[in-house]
């Protein structure tokens, strides 16, 4: 009896595991259709906002990520607080600006693992498929 249950469990897990983890809010699927909306806080050299051009190390990382995943992208800028608030409400998909892993926003947002041992990208909490894709890119691009 117990062995049967275990077997069923193993089968079920291996069937569904192919597309694990999923996003509770389907962020990654939405990005594929509508493109990645990136919130940028001006913080050279990680992210530089000048007139309406966006440059910097993290901007570069995300551009390359989008190219590798075949995604379109758009940048917007606002105050840090507004951007994080919109990130929490799933209005934007990712916020960059040289945030560190001990950032004050730690409890409000999800974070990628540091791409350079210190700096992280902010994503909506719990969107684990999106996180998976980002971290996969961050690891392979090293």
């Amino acid at each position, binding site marked *: 009896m117990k062995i049967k249950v275990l077997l069923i469990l193993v089968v079920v897990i291996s069937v569904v595991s192919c597309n*694990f983890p*999923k996003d*509770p809010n389907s962020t990654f699927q939405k990005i594929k259709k509508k493109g990645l909306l990136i919130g940028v806080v001006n913080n050279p050299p990680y992210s530089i906002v000048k007139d309406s051009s966006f440059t910097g190390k993290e901007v570069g990382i995300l551009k390359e990520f989008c190219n590798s995943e075949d995604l379109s992208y758009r940048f917007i800028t606002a105050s840090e607080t507004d951007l994080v608030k919109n990130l929490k409400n799933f209005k934007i998909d990712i916020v960059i600006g040289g945030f560190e892993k001990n950032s004050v926003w730690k409890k409000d947002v999800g974070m990628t693992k540091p791409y350079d041992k210190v700096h992280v990208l902010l*994503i909506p909490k*719990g*969107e684990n498929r999106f996180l*998976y894709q980002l971290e996969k890119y961050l690891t392979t691009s090293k």
Partner: protein
Amino acid sequence: MTKVNNNYELPDHLKLVLSKAKKLEWISLLYLISVVVLMYLTMGSSQAMKTAWLEDALSLSPSISFLIASRIYSKGPNKDFPYGYHRVFSIAFLTGSVALFAMGAFLCIDSAIALIMKDRPTIGTISISDTQIWMGWIMIVVLVYSAIPAMLLGFKKMPLAKRLHNKILYTDAKTQKADYMTALAAIVGVLGVGAGIWWADSATALFISLSVIKDGYKNLSEAIKDLMDRHPVHVADKTKDDLLDKITNEVKQWVWVEDAVVRFREHGQVYFGEIYVVVIDDDISSSEIEQALEKIKDFHWKIHDVTIMPVRSLLPYDYTK
């Protein structure tokens, strides 16, 4: 009268059982430390993992307190502790249950807050030799590791605890045997997160915390009742130990005894108590009473310390009602 030495509580065949139990607890301790470290390293922001982790961390306490108590319990009585040190087991049991109960309550509130605040667990990835693996899978592997050896240890300790009449060992064994439930619940939580159901995590955490509270409450109530000197009970099913009835019947059969009443309480693994007897012939010698004491002590190893008190009537001492 009392045999005084430093290792006098258990009969020889049970000393072997105790040393086996000690060995198992040492193994448990080392294994649990490895589990706690591994879980800490993998738990990330999963509430279910945090709950299972704290529960496992707390399950170190029975092993530790058993090992400490088992060094103390059989010291002989002295002028500062004239009743010996047997109750160290009861105290260890009480402190363990208080900790378990408090932790359960904390985890319950913590998980409920996570659920109400809609706190979504963000679980990242780990790269092992060029393969990107979702941390959820690693958590599940660690949870399985936290369950199966624990279960086997629990099964091995259970019979020893019954033979030793040792509550802390018994509770430890029982909790470990049931530990797979916690691990399974946490696995369901992590899988739920993988499936995109964010609340699965804090909901299973809440479920686990409720079971911790339940265990904590049950143990706490047992520990308090023991320290309140209730009628001794069996460790496993909590039914009244019929050893006391057997003693009453034995005493009543003695030629110089007309009627008798006994009263015992648990001091850790052993019993302390009094026997009130109405003697047929008022003229009873102290040597006869001393012989009777020896007889009672030989009756069963659990009967550790007895007083026999000749009285004229049992009425004031009849606790059997």
